[in-house]
């Protein structure tokens, strides 16, 4: 049986197909203003028997394709445990939200935290800031690694932080130092969220932002642990969804 899991996020759509407990297909693409058609395009390309959707757009998939749904929290829990059977804590920083999830011994979600409403401290925030500083998103983390720890950014609101960054630039501050300060601010916020659910190792770091080396460094330093980062941190939710599709 081919089980399809789809994670319809605010920024990207991720898709995984599992057969006999092994992923046989993975795909990622940017989401658009028309998520349904975007999803349709992908579904036309593949074959599957059962389907389960997660992510921000899961209820769209439910309405449109009669798909079963679970929340990202459950999907990430299942996906992370599949990749790392010992995993007890997950930090997921995606396009529009940040989640901290704590699992018990058996892999069941016992507690979670999520940012509410705004995109403060999420992938989207990093993207906006990278743009202001003239970086591509994939070089942003490396640039920040080269910066000095001489300044602090206090604002986590995308709008206010933008103002803060622009005034720092106007003061002649080096852009990699600003980049570093921005990373530190997000890491601080995320580690506080993790601490609220309790940090038990192994801690899996997932979501698009887990590709950012500076975020990893800061988080490891602040939490005083080493993080486990999946080979493709963005696919964890879709993987979990595919596994759950098989169970339903």
């Amino acid at each position, binding site marked *: 049986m081919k089980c399809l899991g789809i994670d319809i996020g605010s920024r990207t759509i991720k898709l995984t197909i599992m057969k006999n407990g092994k992923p046989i297909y993975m795909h990622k693409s940017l989401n658009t203003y028309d998520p349904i058609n975007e999803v349709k395009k992908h579904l036309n390309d593949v074959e599957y028997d059962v389907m389960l959707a997660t992510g*921000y757009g899961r*209820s769209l998939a439910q309405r449109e394709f009669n798909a079963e749904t*679970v*929340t*990202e*929290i*459950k999907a990430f829990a299942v996906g992370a445990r599949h990749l790392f059977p010992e995993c007890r804590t997950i930090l997921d920083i995606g396009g529009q*939200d940040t989640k901290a999830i704590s699992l018990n011994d058996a892999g*069941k*979600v*016992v507690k*979670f935290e*999520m940012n*509410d*409403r705004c995109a403060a401290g999420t992938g989207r925030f990093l993207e906006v800031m990278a743009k202001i500083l003239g970086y591509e998103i994939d070089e942003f983390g490396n640039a920040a690694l080269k910066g000095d720890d001489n300044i602090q950014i206090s604002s986590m609101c995308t709008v206010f932080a933008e103002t803060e960054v622009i005034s720092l630039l106007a003061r002649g501050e080096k852009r990699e130092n600003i980049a570093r300060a921005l990373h530190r601010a997000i890491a601080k916020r995320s580690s506080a969220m993790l601490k609220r659910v309790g940090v038990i190792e192994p801690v899996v770091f997932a979501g698009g932002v887990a590709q950012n080396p500076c975020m990893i460094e800061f988080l490891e330093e602040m939490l005083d642990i080493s993080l486990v980062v999946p080979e493709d941190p963005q696919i964890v939710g879709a993987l979990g969804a595919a596994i759950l599709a098989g169970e339903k």
Partner: protein
Amino acid sequence: MADYREMWRSLGIDLESHDNLLDILGKLYGDIYLSQNKRPEGMEYLDFVVSEVHGYRIKELLDAQKVGSKVFGTFCVFVPEELIWAADGICVGLCAGAEIGKGDAEKVLPRSICPLIKSFMGFKLAHLCPYTELCDLIIGETTCDGKKKAFEIFSEFKSTYVMETPQMKREKDYDLWRNEVYKLKEKVEEVTGKEITPERLKSAIKLINDRRRALKRLNKLRREIPVPISGRDALLINQISFYDDPKRFTEKVNLLCDELEKRIERKEGVVSDKTVRVLLAGSPMALPNWKLPGVIESSGAVIVDEESCIGERNIRAMVDESGETMEELIDALVDRYMQIDCACFTPNNERIEHIIQLAKDFKVDGVIHYTLQFCDPYLVESYKVEKALEKEGIPVLRIETDYSMEDVEQLKTRIEAFVEVLR
């Protein structure tokens, strides 16, 4: 529906915005209420009351005023309404559960203030609430800082009398409150021109106790598995208890309870017995603030009790009915009202004990602790509530939100995930 436009106009209502408000309300009600399955038949009365929320009841109140009754508006379950009824007055608990008149409210209030406060100010400044407009007197209180200070501004637009509510529950706080209750009695007598005699007060106490008894009866039925009525409907009944005629309301709720008892005999629930049961605890949920209950009950859970002022906090304690003299009756009122476990008190450990007890009595799978944004008393207290519940092994989810719809998707994700955890 009868044409009430003349009536509204005479009250100074802004008709155009008011039409808009009724439209939104109607649509919201259709989405959240009328779409439910297996609603008890007794909800028809409540549907009627909601459809006539600014119509029939307003007319009743105006008619009562024509023959000399006075109408008092309140914003807190701390105001001993028995005194009002005892003077042939009418008490309406004003709601403030809609994001309406926000622009007007923000002209006089800071942006970061509890939405309930913003809403009552907004309703007044935008001339949208016929209840507020027709009231002869608004009775405020000094519970939380936001409300206390907002009444100073509110009183510029509407005659307002403020009671001082204590913050602790020591001997001298009881004395303070007793004094305030006597002062309110005088004030009510002054406004109504009627003397409050012990006989009248005694029968008013009975009238309001009867309403509490009916609501308690309703809540008791919600302990059953499967639960015979949805949380949304039960919340609505509690919301309407604040402005409907108490006698008629009590009768209707009792009739509804008769129906629910038959359902229970047949083991017929409004949802299946597998549905996740939650207790909703926290800040008040004024009409028509149905956002969170709507999200919860469309995420595979059912709310089986409300630990809030529109719920348990308003009906838990009863006034002792045995007093004969004025002194005894007032003491009975003082004792009853001082049992309210509002987060404005410090310490407020009894609230935590109550929540744990309710969670057990109603056999809930988890507790959702709800706070209105910027409501410091409940927000700060939620930390202790969470700790205590976790110690008891009762899962809890803390939600902080306001009346706007912009966070509905995020709320859905968090609540669905909580339900997944509880399943």
